[in-house]
């Protein structure tokens, strides 16, 4: 479905020096410096897969998705999407793929989403009856009934994203590219959008390729995840096996108890910090269920307050670097693309 081999992309960015003198010099003789956005990426995606492309800002996610949708020519490497070379056959490919880019809405700001849907149906040359049927189903599944007549600018970010995804599915694409679909959403809207992505994949059989810098998207959505950093694939793994690996299964538990925590102990739990009734623990939930820890805490004392923290993407990436015996993090490239 998607085959990528040694794909890479370099950009030229202008260089500026500080101060009046630097400004003047840039005025007369601007200089450019090549920056590698994507170094060398290789992977394949099978039909029906739901793949998350995860990485911090500036890791090269957006550049990769732009190359796969035919927007950018790569500097090196090869790629095929549905058998098409995206940047050569982009018009043909466009009928078979859908895309949602956070930065550019396909919805018209001052009009209700329905107007945008109608336009997209024409743009993708959908027969009227088929369009009607698909629209009706998408409206039902995405629960857009109440939103269809509201101007887009009045919708919440979450509602807008639901409409965006529905819009991208209208023409029955076989692959859906989503660039940061959950960015900026609150917890509830995030869940709703994830659920819809999941259902589009599982129930409508759309292959989905999404980028995110939210580790939560991996756990909630995907069967497979590719972690990318500095334009390189750091990890390409099954989420099931990942979930059992310490990258993801570690939880940090902070608790305040009704009495001093000096005497607390529990198998499989590393105690990070103890101060009066306060306690900070690290638990590998693959080995010790979180439930087990909570029971042990309750048996010891009354719990007055508790937090459970999942590792952040940065921590996960740092962890992977450590495991691979690489230096913790290479010098950061300017994050000029994934804003």
């Amino acid at each position, binding site marked *: 479905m998607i085959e990528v081999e040694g794909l890479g992309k370099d950009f030229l960015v202008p260089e500026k020096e500080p101060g*009046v003198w630097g*400004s003047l010099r*840039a*005025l007369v003789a*601007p200089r450019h410096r090549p920056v590698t956005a994507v170094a060398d990426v290789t992977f394949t995606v099978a039909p029906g897969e739901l793949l998350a492309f995860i990485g911090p800002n500036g890791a090269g996610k957006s550049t990769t998705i732009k190359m796969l949708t035919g927007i950018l020519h790569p500097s090196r490497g090869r790629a095929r999407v549905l058998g098409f070379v995206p940047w050569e056959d982009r018009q043909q490919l466009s009928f078979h793929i859908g895309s949602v880019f956070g930065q550019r809405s396909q919805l018209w700001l001052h009009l209700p989403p329905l107007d945008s849907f109608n336009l997209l149906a024409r743009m993708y040359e959908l027969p009227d009856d088929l369009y009607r049927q698909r629209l009706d189903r998408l409206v039902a599944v995405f629960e857009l009934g109440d939103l269809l007549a509201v101007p887009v600018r009045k919708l919440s970010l979450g509602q807008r994203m639901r409409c965006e995804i529905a819009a991208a599915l209208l023409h029955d694409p076989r692959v859906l590219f989503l660039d940061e679909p959950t960015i900026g959403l609150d917890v509830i809207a995030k869940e709703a959008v994830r659920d819809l992505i999941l259902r589009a994949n599982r129930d409508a059989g759309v292959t989905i390729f999404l980028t995110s810098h939210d580790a939560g998207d991996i756990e909630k959505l995907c069967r497979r995840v590719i972690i990318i950093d500095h334009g390189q694939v750091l990890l390409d793994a099954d989420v099931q096996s990942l979930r059992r690996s310490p990258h993801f299964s570690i939880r940090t538990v902070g608790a305040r108890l009704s009495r001093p925590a000096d005497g607390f102990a529990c198998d499989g739990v590393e105690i990070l910090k103890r101060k009066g009734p306060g306690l900070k623990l690290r638990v590998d939930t693959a080995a010790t269920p979180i439930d087990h820890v909570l029971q042990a805490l309750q048996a010891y004392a009354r719990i007055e307050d508790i937090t459970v923290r999942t590792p952040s993407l940065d921590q996960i990436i740092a962890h992977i670097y450590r495991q691979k015996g690489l230096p913790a993090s290479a010098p950061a490239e300017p994050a000029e693309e994934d804003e």
Partner: protein
Amino acid sequence: MPGVAGTGAADPAGGPARRPLPGLGFLLALQRLNLMAGMAYRWSFLSQVVFMMLNNAIFMVFWWVFFQRFPQVQGWGMDDMLLLFALVAAGFGLSVTLFGNALRLSSMIQEGKVDVFLSAPPDPFLHLLMSRMSLSGIGDFLFGVGAFLWLYPADPVRWLAFGVVVVCSGLILTAFWVISQCLAFFLGGSEGISGILAEALVTLSMYPDSLFTGGVKYFVYSVVPVGFVAWLPVSIVRGPGAGPLALLVAATVLWVWLARLVFAAGLRRYESGNLIQARG
């Protein structure tokens, strides 16, 4: 600018003096920063300056064509138009270069961008107005000065008169814009009407005053001060005289004082939070 500082010292509306006016050093540093930020985009900087001069020159071509066909319009000829345009362009350029935010106040108020300036130590009035520099204004200013020097290449008395009236004209323009933009403090969304008022002033000031007779004449010397921005300055430069000059300076002081008054009143309303409903 000395005029502004002078009137500012008598704080408007008898309200408690907020903060001392920002020092000259601070304002100079602000303008230096503005200029540097502008030059960071080399093409923008050069082209905005050069193209704005060209832009004005082409407008003069219109009048040249016009006066080729109709040599006199009620006493106004090509030289008078050129002088009028030189004055207005220089005053306009001075204003938008030094007080680049004057024409953006309305949207800034609406978007809550004024907050940053309220929480900074310097007096918000000048700090706010001077925090942006319109680069094209430099082109306007240079065009105005150039056109004037072309008309009067060796006439030091007129140069002096020109310098004074341009500063007055620029200050009245700025004051008028500030007042019209401050409507946003009281009406909420006022970009439309503020824009119309600003444009009306500039547009009317580019035509001979002999076109406006009757009731309109009073209008253009009061509500919309075209007379003080354009025609009075022209008559002063044509035949330097102390009387008209004193009138212009008085009008300038009055308008600047009014602008500070309205701005201060607007700020009080803004700080009271009444605007939140208006923003709706």
